[in-house]
């Protein structure tokens, strides 16, 4: 049995397999089907200062090898999380990471401040990449100054490990990555969803209420792998890779490209047990290749 643990800044994960925000609820939804304690980490739903109803239905459509969503950060707000959800999940033996979203810098800061005292929150993931909200979200993540201003403000408000989640909807993701690192990010995660659109040809209407939405699933994987590879070379902080990972083999693509850990998103909808199977696969892979730890594989791409 190889050692599967990895470090994200000061945060030690028992293995590199985590679940992506917005695709795994608060973990509880999956408790009948998998042992949550086996996961490297759970990144909970995007959490905002105030409750949000999200976008009108329809919010999803299946597309070739993936899906578009326009959920729009529906959540009951950070107070509800702290008072009702945190007590239920803080006993889990896995890293609980809260995805922080907002429309203004003050919003992000307020959520970080509220989470800062909670010792069972292992890290925050600052989402500067949501394509489904009109203000804030992705607009912060598409310019270096925008990214820098949110990240440095959150840095002051949060003492623990701070991951910054990047959007792929930019010309050069490495510039934003460097800006986030300079502003105090302990790690970077990428990618969020790709801005996309689908049309119901018979009705001649958009498939989503918001017209455009975020594309996820295996259709985005090759682009996400490329971006992780570029970013891992451009920064010194750990990179967490995601985008279309369906199984352990896919996860290893990201790790070989330079990711220290990975997140499973849309895969959870198809196979709610995909994460657990992947942990086994990675362990077998290390054994098969005569390796005894995951860091030996990080960025080990022979090119």
């Amino acid at each position, binding site marked *: 049995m190889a050692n599967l643990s990895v470090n994200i800044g000061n945060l030690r994960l028992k293995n590199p397999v985590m679940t992506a925000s917005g695709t795994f*609820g608060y973990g509880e939804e999956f408790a*009948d089907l998998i042992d949550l304690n086996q996961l490297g980490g759970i990144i909970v*739903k995007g959490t905002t200062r105030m409750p949000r109803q999200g976008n009108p*239905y329809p919010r999803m459509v299946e597309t070739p090898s993936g899906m578009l969503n326009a959920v729009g950060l529906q959540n009951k707000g950070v107070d509800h999380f702290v008072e009702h959800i945190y007590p239920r999940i803080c006993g889990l033996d896995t890293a609980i990471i809260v995805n922080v979203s907002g429309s203004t810098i003050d919003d992000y800061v307020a959520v970080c401040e509220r989470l800062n005292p909670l010792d069972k929150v292992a890290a925050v993931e600052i989402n500067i990449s949501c394509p489904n909200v009109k203000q804030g979200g992705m607009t912060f993540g598409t310019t270096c100054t925008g990214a820098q201003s949110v990240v440095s403000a959150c840095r002051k408000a949060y003492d623990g490990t701070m991951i910054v989640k990047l959007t792929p909807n930019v010309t050069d993701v490495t510039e934003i990555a460097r800006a986030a690192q300079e502003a105090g990010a302990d790690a970077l995660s990428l990618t969020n969803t790709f801005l996309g659109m689908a049309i119901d040809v018979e009705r001649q209407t958009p498939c989503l209420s918001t017209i455009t939405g975020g594309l996820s699933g295996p259709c985005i994987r090759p682009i996400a792998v490329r971006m992780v590879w570029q970013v891992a070379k451009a920064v010194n902080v750990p990179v967490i890779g995601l985008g279309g990972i369906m199984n352990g083999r896919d996860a290893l693509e990201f790790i070989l490209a330079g990711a220290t850990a990975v997140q499973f998103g849309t895969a*959870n909808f198809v196979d*709610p047990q995909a994460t657990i199977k992947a942990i086994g696969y990675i362990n077998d892979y290390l054994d098969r290749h005569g390796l005894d730890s995951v860091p030996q594989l990080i960025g080990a791409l022979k090119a």
Partner: protein
Amino acid sequence: MTENKKHILDFTVRQNLRLGTNYALLKLMPTGGQLPPCEPGQFAQVLVPNSKNTFLRRPISICNIDPNENLLWLLVRRAGEGTAALCDLHEGETLNVMLPLGHGFTLHRDGTTLLVGGGVGVAPLLMLGKVLKEQGMQPEFLLGARTENDLLMLDKFNELGPVHITTDDGSAGVHGVVTRHPVLTGGNMAHIACCGPMPMMRAVAALARQQGIDCEVSLENLMACGMGACLCCVEDTADAGNVCVCTEGPVFNINRLKWQI
């Protein structure tokens, strides 16, 4: 209603009964072990096999549980590629299914429940009728279809209670939509349980509200996960705003919904 534990199980197709060209009744047996307990109105998330162009699971109502034979029945309408692949399954093939999901119909012990179904929406009503009958109640059915050939599983419904019929073309039963049928307009039942196309459910809900009859409908919102994780399937409610149809539904009392009826 009790919260049944979710399972992911492989099933073997024991029988695929083609019902006309557009429907199939699949009888599935868990490849190992027993079927988990399921309630009428709950659904399953089915992974579509042999299908290159579909990706997500497909939500399908639990049509019946046959505990003696250890069989799960699914009634499937050919709507697109995923359901077509399910309709074309052969005996002996394997199907991966997650179940049971969601909250089903209320089992009323006071007064008659009229079970109103349209098209493939009759699927969950078979199990509901069976369970009501087992509990000593007397369910009554009103089934609507486009033509006589689209009336599904009539023999099975006939075993459970009185069956009233409407067809759009008048080829069987009362000519027209279900809301034209005297059993519904007469308003002699205490409860309505309805599953079918949206226009039908809205019309039935409007009539129920007019007549002050308690009414539940089963929604078919587009779903990704089917288990409350993605928040894609939401319906706006009077009491709680957007809620997940896959966990709080698919069955809702019409008083919770914000339908303009």
